[in-house]
């Protein structure tokens, strides 16, 4: 058959067809490969890179916050995050099952069984199935035990990745809360506004306090690590690391020991008051300034909160509980820069005004019978013969009413301003209040809108009845008119009263002269005003941050004392004020004599009791010491604390005692557990100071600290003025803030060396923050 030519030819043809088919098939493959490898090569090359190259951001630690003696108040500690890289179909299930068993009990999966956790992980994985090259975050803030268990089982857990990131660490619990502020994840709006500063989704930043105002300094620069990974997400090699640059450290003017003492004194004082029946006394503030520089040595606000609620991974329930406590206590509010009526602590202003303007001489005296016109002194029967020094000593209301009436409101206001009252001090904290000095114009502005409101209500009622009267029959008209008048009458009453209030009256001047009425100042302003009296008339700008230090110890910026002004009050007058205040601490009848009984130093002080309508009085106390050569000034406020000398005075005494006792004590005295750890920490501190590129040029400009709050609500609504305008009125009975959570190990950093050049720091570095409503902890605290 092979010899059959026809068959052979036919066979040849068939084989040619087959060859044609083969060539066609190969052509298809050829074209397809050319398309993939020549046309689309770039696309696939990118995908291959996404597969095996991973840029892992390294979050830079924030700068630490250190007190004036090198005690670390805020540090950082590592937190571990578990993520998972897709493994291909085969191993994934097995690894997830194993991982789920390890993660049982972790916060992220609280209350879930192994099977549920497995399901949850699968769900998370599935949500990201189009970006397989990115590891999927599985659990946040896992415990170090879990981390070490995962490390032990490394080989059986391919694809499981552990990331570390630093979070805030507070070695001394609530020390310097809420002045420190807190750090939280930026919300959408904050991110939007700060995108050009290099913030990215998921970044944290300071949300309040020092953390907020020094954000540009504290914030570090993110680093990154490029790694090559295999399909299991296991790093095969490092392709390069850009080290993160830690943020700069803040060295504060605060003395941690004194701060602790101030917070404890406040807490103890308030606890004592509670026991004595002042159930409304729950909050307070204390400010200690160095009168020679304006340095803030302590800035306490009570109650405080546990700062770790913003760094721990709280369950929803825990968070709600913590947040409810914060809302009730209003403990995010820094009461040291919130507003209080000054009470008698204002009397030095009036005395200064009268002496300076020549209304009285130092010898001028009244014979106090305990009455001035329709006003009655706090001491029945009066104080007898009272000159200005004695008036301050015994806090004689009658004397200041007399003098106040001689002065009138405007001169008193002028001297209040002279001492820095009613103005922001420029402290580096967001939310500082300017305060309020009363006066005719201010009073009018306060009452006018209220009056207009009543007027409008009355007009509305009239309009309403006009319509109804028009449509009513004769018989009904009389009844309607009666009804209308019945509704108008109380409003008319209020209107008449308010109209009276539009004008400045004599009793306003009298109230003003003894620090009541519409006087509202911050404890910080009060302390600073006393400091100016003490130091001979220099009004310093109080400040919290001494210097900013790079992680390598180099000083980035140093803040030196700055005068706001020389107070335009003669030294003679100031000396009289000091003498009056000093005598107040002396027996037998100085108002603060009891407070300073047995003190080893000489002091000068003034008590204050601010009446609060419908509540116990606010207790105030200002002082400086030593009298002869003043070093510190302080102001203490206890909300609803009753009486100045007993409630606030004892707190002030404790703080001043602490100040003098601590003078020669080690930097961590009174901070529990300090000694043992000091040395280790020094060692780590030394290790830490590896050279790190300092801040980029231009980054250290003074203009960097800017108030971030652009939408500050106006001051306290005028409607509240009758209530004394305390920073919010905490409702419901509750014990004062839980005691100080100490017992944590103490961290001490070596005092940062270098620097000290004494170069004048650029001026205008602290544009005044805008005021905000007291008692309204700002929103935007969504840390979770």
């Amino acid at each position, binding site marked *: *058959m*092979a010899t059959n030519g026809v068959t052979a030819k*036919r*066979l*040849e043809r*068939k*084989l040619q*067809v*087959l*060859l044609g*088919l*083969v*060539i066609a*098939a*190969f052509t*298809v*493959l*050829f074209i*397809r*490969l*050319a398309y*993939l*490898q*020549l046309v*689309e*090569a770039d*696309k*696939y*090359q990118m*995908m*291959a*890179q996404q*597969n*095996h190259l991973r840029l892992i951001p390294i979050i830079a630690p924030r700068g630490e916050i250190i007190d004036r003696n090198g005690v670390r108040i805020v540090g950082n500690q590592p937190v571990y995050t578990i993520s998972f890289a*897709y493994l*291909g*179909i085969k191993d994934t299930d097995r690894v997830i099952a194993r991982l789920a068993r390890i993660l049982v009990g972790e916060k992220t999966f609280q209350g879930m069984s192994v099977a549920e956790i497995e399901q949850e992980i699968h769900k998370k*994985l*599935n949500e990201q*199935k*189009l970006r*397989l090259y990115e590891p999927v975050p599985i659990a946040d803030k896992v415990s170090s035990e879990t981390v070490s268990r995962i490390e032990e089982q490394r080989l059986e857990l391919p694809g499981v990745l552990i990331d570390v990131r630093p979070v805030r660490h507070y070695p001394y619990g609530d020390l310097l809360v809420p002045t420190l502020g807190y750090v939280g994840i930026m919300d959408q709006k904050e991110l939007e506004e700060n995108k050009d500063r290099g913030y990215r989704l998921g970044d944290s930043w300071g949300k309040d306090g020092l953390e907020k105002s020094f954000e540009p300094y504290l914030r570090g620069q993110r680093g990154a690590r490029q790694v*090559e*990974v*295999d*399909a*299991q997400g*296991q790093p*095969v*090699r*490092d392709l390069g690391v850009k080290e993160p640059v830690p943020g700069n450290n803040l060295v504060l003017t605060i003395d941690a020991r004194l701060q602790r003492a101030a917070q404890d004194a406040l807490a103890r004082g308030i606890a004592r008051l509670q026991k004595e029946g002042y159930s409304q006394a729950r909050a307070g503030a204390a400010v200690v300034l160095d009168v020679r520089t304006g340095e803030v040595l302590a800035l306490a606000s009570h109650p405080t909160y546990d700062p770790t609620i913003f760094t721990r991974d709280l369950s929803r329930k825990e968070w709600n509980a913590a947040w409810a406590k914060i809302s009730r206590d209003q403990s995010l509010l820094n009461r040291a820069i919130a507003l209080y009526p000054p009470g008698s602590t204002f009397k030095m202003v009036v005395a200064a005004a009268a002496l300076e303007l020549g209304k009285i001489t130092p010898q001028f005296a009244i014979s106090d019978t305990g009455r001035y016109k329709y006003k009655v002194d706090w001491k029945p029967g009066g104080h007898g013969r009272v000159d200005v020094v004695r008036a301050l000593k015994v806090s004689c209301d009658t004397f200041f009413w007399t003098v106040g009436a001689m002065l009138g409101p405007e001169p008193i206001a002028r001297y209040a301003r002279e001492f820095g009252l009613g103005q922001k001090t420029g402290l580096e904290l967001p939310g500082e209040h300017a305060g309020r000095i009363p006066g005719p114009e201010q009073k009018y502005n306060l009452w006018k809108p209220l009056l207009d409101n009543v007027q409008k209500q009355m007009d509305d009622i009239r309009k309403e009845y006009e319509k109804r009267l028009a449509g009513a029959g004769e018989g009904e008209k009389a009844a309607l008119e009666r009804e209308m008048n019945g509704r108008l009458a109380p409003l008319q009453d209020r209107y008449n009263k308010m109209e009276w209030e539009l004008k400045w009256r004599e009793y306003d001047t009298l109230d003003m002269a003894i620090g009541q009425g519409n006087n509202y100042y911050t404890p910080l302003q009060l302390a600073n005003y006393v400091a100016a009296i003490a130091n001979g008339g220099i009004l310093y700008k109080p400040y919290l941050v001494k210097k900013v230090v790079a992680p390598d110890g180099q000083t980035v910026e140093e803040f030196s004392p700055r005068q706001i002004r020389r107070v335009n009050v003669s030294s003679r007058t100031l000396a009289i004020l000091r003498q009056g205040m000093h005598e107040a601490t002396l027996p037998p009848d100085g108002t603060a004599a009891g407070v300073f009984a047995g003190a080893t130093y000489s002091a000068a002080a003034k008590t204050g009791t601010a009446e609060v309508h419908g509540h116990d009085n606010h207790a105030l106390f200002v002082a400086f010491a030593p009298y002869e050569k003043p070093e510190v000034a302080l102001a203490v406020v206890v909300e609803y604390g009753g009486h100045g000398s007993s409630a606030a005075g004892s707190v002030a005494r404790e703080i001043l005692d602490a100040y003098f006792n601590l003078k020669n004590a080690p930097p961590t005295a009174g901070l529990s557990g300090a000694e043992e750890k000091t040395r280790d920490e020094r060692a780590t501190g030394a290790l830490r100071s590896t050279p790190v590129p300092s801040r980029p040029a231009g980054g250290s400009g003074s203009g960097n600290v800017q108030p971030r709050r652009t939408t500050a609500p106006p001051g306290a609504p005028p409607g509240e003025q009758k209530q004394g305008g305390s920073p919010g009125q905490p409702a419901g009975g509750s014990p004062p803030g839980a005691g100080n959570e100490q017992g944590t190990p103490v961290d001490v950093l070596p005092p940062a060396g270098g620097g000290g050049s004494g170069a004048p720091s650029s001026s205008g570095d602290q544009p005044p923050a805008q005021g905000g409503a007291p008692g309204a902890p700002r929103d935007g605290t969504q840390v979770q």
Partner: protein
Amino acid sequence: MVGKRFTRSLDHVLLLAAGMVVLFSLVAIGSATLEFTDESFSRLKNLFFAVKLLHLDYAYVVRQLAWIFVGLWVMAAIMYIPYEDLCKHARELYILNLVMLIAVIFLGREALGAQRWIYIGPFNFQPSEFSKLIMIITFASFLSAREGRLNRLRDLLPCFVYVGIPTLLILKQPDLGTSLVFVAIMFGMLFLAGARPGLLLALIGAGLALMVGLFVLHMYLHNADVDLEKQLLVLEQQKKAAVSETARQELQRKYQQVERDYREAHRRHESFHRHTLKEYQVTRLTVFLDPQSDLLGAGYHVWQSLIAIGSGGFLGKGLLGGTQSHLTFLPIRHTDFIFSVVGEEFGFMGAVVLLGLYLVLLYRGLKIASQARDLQGTLLAGGVVCMFAFHIFVNIGMTAGIMPVTGIPLPLFSYGGSNMIMNLAALGLLLNVYMRRKKILF
């Protein structure tokens, strides 16, 4: 000087092409199985090519070499026996084939969801591979006896039965890829044996239409099932949220009705899968059309393979430079997806060289078929060529995302003993026909 005459009687071009393919495959296997686990591997990339060869993973290469050695002996043995003698034993071979395939069903071990292997001592042996070669021999004998009597459909029916029985046995494993190879071989050999081309085309057309029809039917049944299930869930939610009792009852009625429909649809869908392919098989076969629809599951292989080949570009990433391969993104890369490694590391150039070698091999095979001294020889050679061509096209097509994932290896290239021995034996068969071509040298 039998050796010299014997050597001279071989098709040197064919052998050279095959030899180069096998050499290439050894390099590719040695590279494919190397997994980078730490820094040290990345330095290999910059070495000279020859030095890189020393760093290959020789564990698999050595084993493959052993199989090649065995395969060469089998090849020589097959060359030695005149093919007419082989064909004389077609009946016994056919029975052996069936016994082997049935044995897989009873004795086989399961792997990757299919029973394809029989373990003999330390070796696992894949009967379906050898089945292909036996099929070619027995069918050639079967067809040559029917020469000139293949013009009507009725004439073809016995052929279908003859090939169909082993094919179905393989389909049962299940090994769809190999059964398709059988179909391809059958049609190729029928064509060469003189069956009417129009009739064959019609049959192939009908087969394709049936497949498309089945696919459409499946989509219909599948979607109906899924849709009704969704409806049921929605109704269930609505029922829970129903405000009034009457509304609830109304929803309950509707629910029951949908539930009936759903049961019916689900049953039909299930029975479809019972009688044809399983759901996952359908997914696997069709996912190449859109691998991104299931990147975590069925589409993963295809997608990673596309990335590997595409990212190779024109010249490739160089031996040991493939990130997809060495960082283990590519699955089963030393067997079914070996071509992806070639595409990634040797680029378009390497792929084209390999395609060229295969083309030479197939061309020589067809040449041998045309020079055969009788129809039996032509059919044997033609069958082998069809088998190789189908394997090459489907395998490379699969890695390049234009063919379904059927898991058939790349001839003379993929790692695997049974496959390599069978391929070398098939080459032996080709040479057997070549040596005994029209111009008799012996």
